[in-house]
């Protein structure tokens, strides 16, 4: 029975030019993605890359992906502005009743069509993530996918997807079919995640032997941490689904608050669990991941929470952040006698840390004072110039820095105090990892404390309205320079840690684009939220290593900045507050978009003219 109304329009009649624009953009994005993942070209064959990525079957999967995203965006926008409504008035029926009640040819066609579509999507996904990264979508390779058990994992996912699609279609077309019973969905999700975790590993054929389930075997499922990752993700997803359904009220009631009430016991439990995980988990990783846990993830977490002070807390932009990192590293080299310029005395690397902090901080103050006095946005380009200068000095000032040939060896960390002798051995990455944790955790708590102290409140006041803050007696310049130099000194400490582990420094490890990498870590997780930045940094530093390791998606390390650049633009357009935003920062950005106050301390967009 159609609901009575003056005009009952079909769902497609409410589409307009805005939706067409959205779909075009999404499809265009899919094509750009195809170019990004396609093969490289060269100057002699400038069109090769485009031809091989856009004019071949390579583009199909990405175009499909773009179109799916476009449909989802359109659906979300339409539901949001109330043009489309989900109607739930039908009585509850069991799954069997529901499936037998589907009578008309239209419905059957829709069911079959959506099932086919999701199966195709699954096979395409299996293909793209499969071991054959090039020459995608040829029938030969597609057929090959069925030899790998992983494809069946994706097919299971496809079935889940199909149910979802069917549900959506029926809601959309008002066929009044209820969503599936909770228990069925939950069981299905768990099962499919289990199969997915079993099958998503590229080294699969061995997984279904008896060895796979034998915990003591070297190649066991339980030795591979992706298994746990998938299981945790699946459990979380299932749990959130269950709780969401259970809480949906039958009668009009005030919307349940989505904020979780954190009791002290929960907090302590979380800390203990996180601590246990942080302490215990790395032991089970392979050497490759242990090294990258320190080098790729630990150091970059430190850098990211340092930059978060500048970008997130103070609302400034620092594009030459890597310069302070380089300063810290070269100061360490100097005090170990690794530079052509000899120091007056040699220092244990632990004792270099205060020097690195002070020197980086001084550089920050010297750079920040003249620049920030004037206009916040000049800081971005001044730091960009500073980063380039530091690189040029490291590369060309041979008599001091050793130039592009690199520095001499840098002594590692060691303790020889009160009868304790311990030398950190570079061949044991875990010892460095624990040291890094030892400095990272205090830093996190310190910065969090700072953000909730008078200093943090002053930063927030300056971000939101600089003029008002100054009229209340807050010295804006002081707090901005403070944030900038604190970020700088954090980078200095990270520099010491890198120098000590690497042993020899080359200018090429401090190129300016590294600053952009660190910036994206901060932006992705959510500027201003330490938890968000940490999670973002861990994820974004882990992902390229993982993709390189397994050569999924035809990913190449050389294309890293292509993805980073695109990610920055997309984040700024769709979600400037980041994935796990700090509540205050999110509100500031939304408020400033509505014309209330500002969300950074770069100075007002419309400025009084100097006369």
């Amino acid at each position, binding site marked *: 029975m159609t609901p009575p109304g003056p005009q009952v329009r079909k769902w497609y009649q409410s589409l307009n030019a805005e939706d067409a624009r959205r779909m075009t953009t999404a499809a265009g994005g899919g094509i750009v993605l195809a170019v990004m993942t396609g093969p490289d070209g060269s100057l002699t064959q400038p069109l090769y890359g485009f031809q091989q990525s856009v004019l071949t079957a390579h583009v199909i999967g990405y175009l499909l992906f773009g179109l799916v995203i476009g449909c989802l965006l359109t659906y979300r926008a339409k539901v949001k502005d109330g043009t489309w409504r989900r109607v739930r008035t039908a009585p509850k029926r069991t799954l069997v009743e529901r499936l037998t009640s589907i009578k008309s040819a239209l419905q059957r066609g829709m069911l079959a069509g959506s099932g086919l579509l999701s199966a195709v999507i699954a096979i395409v996904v299996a293909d793209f993530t499969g071991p054959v990264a090039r020459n995608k979508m040829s029938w030969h390779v597609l057929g090959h996918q069925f030899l790998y058990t992983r494809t069946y994992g994706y097919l299971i996912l496809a079935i889940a997807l199909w149910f979802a699609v069917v549900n959506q279609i029926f809601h959309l077309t008002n066929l009044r079919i209820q969503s599936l019973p909770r228990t069925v969905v939950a069981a299905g999700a768990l099962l499919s995640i289990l199969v997915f975790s079993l099958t998503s590993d590229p080294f699969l054929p061995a997984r279904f032997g008896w060895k796979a389930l034998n915990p003591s075997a070297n190649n066991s499922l339980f030795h591979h941490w992706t298994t746990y990752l998938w299981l945790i993700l699946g459990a979380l997803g299932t749990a959130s689904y269950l709780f969401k359904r259970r809480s949906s009220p039958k009668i009009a009631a005030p919307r349940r608050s989505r904020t979780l009430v954190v009791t002290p016991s929960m907090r302590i439990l979380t800390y203990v669990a996180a601590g246990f995980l942080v302490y215990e988990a790395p032991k089970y990783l392979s050497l490759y991941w242990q090294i990258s846990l320190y080098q790729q993830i630990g150091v970059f977490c430190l850098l990211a929470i340092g930059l978060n002070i500048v970008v997130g807390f103070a609302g400034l932009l620092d594009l030459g952040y890597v310069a302070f990192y380089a300063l810290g590293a070269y100061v360490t080299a100097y005090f170990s006698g690794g530079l052509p310029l000899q120091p007056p005395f040699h220092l244990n690397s632990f004792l270099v840390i205060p020097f690195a902090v002070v020197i980086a901080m001084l550089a920050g103050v010297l750079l920040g004072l003249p620049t920030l006095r004037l206009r916040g946005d000049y800081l971005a380009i001044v730091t960009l110039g500073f980063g380039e200068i530091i690189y040029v000095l490291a590369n060309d*000032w041979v008599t001091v820095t050793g130039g592009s040939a690199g520095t001499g060896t840098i002594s590692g960390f060691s303790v020889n105090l009160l009868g304790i002798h311990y030398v950190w051995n570079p061949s044991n990455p875990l010892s460095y990892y624990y040291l890094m944790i030892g400095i990272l955790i205090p830093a996190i708590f310190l910065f969090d404390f700072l953000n909730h102290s008078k200093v943090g409140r002053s930063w927030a006041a300056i971000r939101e309205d600089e003029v008002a803050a100054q009229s209340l007696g807050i010295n804006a310049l002081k707090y901005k320079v403070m944030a900038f130099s604190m970020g700088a000194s954090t980078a200095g400490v990270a520099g010491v840690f890198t120098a000590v582990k690497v042993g020899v420094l080359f200018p090429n490890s401090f190129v300016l684009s590294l600053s952009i990498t660190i910036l994206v870590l901060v932006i992705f997780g959510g500027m201003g939220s330490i938890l968000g930045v940490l999670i973002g940094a861990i994820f974004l530093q882990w992902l390229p290593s993982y993709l390189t390791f397994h050569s999924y998606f035809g990913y190449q390390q050389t294309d890293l900045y292509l993805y980073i650049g695109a990610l920055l633009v997309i984040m700024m357009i769709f979600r400037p507050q980041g994935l796990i935003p700090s509540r205050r920062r999110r509100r500031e950005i939304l408020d400033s978009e509505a014309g209330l106050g500002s969300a950074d301390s770069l100075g007002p967009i419309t400025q009084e003219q100097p006369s």
Partner: protein
Amino acid sequence: MFNYLVQGIFAGLIFSMVALGYTLVYGVLRLINFAHSEVLMTGGFAGYFFLHYTIGSGSVPNSLWVTMLYIVVGVLISGLAGTIVAIIIERFAYRPLRRRNAPKLAYLISAIGASYFLLSLFGKEFGRYPSGTSQPFTDHVVFTLWGGQFTMYDIVILVAAVILMVTVDVVVSRTKMGRAIRAVAQDAETASLMGVNVNRTIASTFALGGFMGGAAGFFVAINQGIYFGMGFKPALLAFTAAVLGGIGNVRGAMIGGVVLGIVMFTPIYWFGQPWLEEVIAFSILVLILLFRPTGLLGERLGRSA
């Protein structure tokens, strides 16, 4: 020493051309366009491909008229490529944010993201190694004045830069488009009430700056060859030039570029270390900000060119 001075002047002309893009966009939007370096890079690549497919690796044309034709068409193609890229940047990295009235930080981050995206895309599609460009003329010293050598490049760059900059100056100060740009720079809201299409004016500002940036890219390409990161350094120096001349000030950007070139290159005569030039330029930027933040000619955000 006079030789370094001459070098500085002609390097400075390139900075002036690029600086115009910064100063125009800053005048209208109050934003540093971090993606402007990629406009220069695109111009350079367009110039490379034009010369590669017309002259190729064959002989350098020896007729003056043919050379001039190559240069004029090359500048136009490079400038057009720069214009297109600048408009694309405005369309995808700026306009969605402007529609939402995003905070300033978001624009800067989105522009730097667009810059890295374009840079890596060119590196991916056209190879990551630097390459020389086919030459439309043979470079030689034309005449020497007080020890300063004036080469063929210098003369070509001088003539082209003067023509282009005079054109921009006329466009900004005389034409309807220029009047719209100045009106938006002064007060966008009032300008839109007066019937100025703000979005189109901003796009045309990007286009104008993009044309100059692309044309500058052509000269950088024939002089130093191409590379996907070729835009970074000239663009950084050009921003310094824009600040030196007074940001938002079109004539200031022109003069600032030449002054920066002279101040950067002349000290090499005494120090003898070519890499010092960037250190000097950067110190100049910090010193201007410290002592005369409005630049040589003063900031003119929105007042007549």
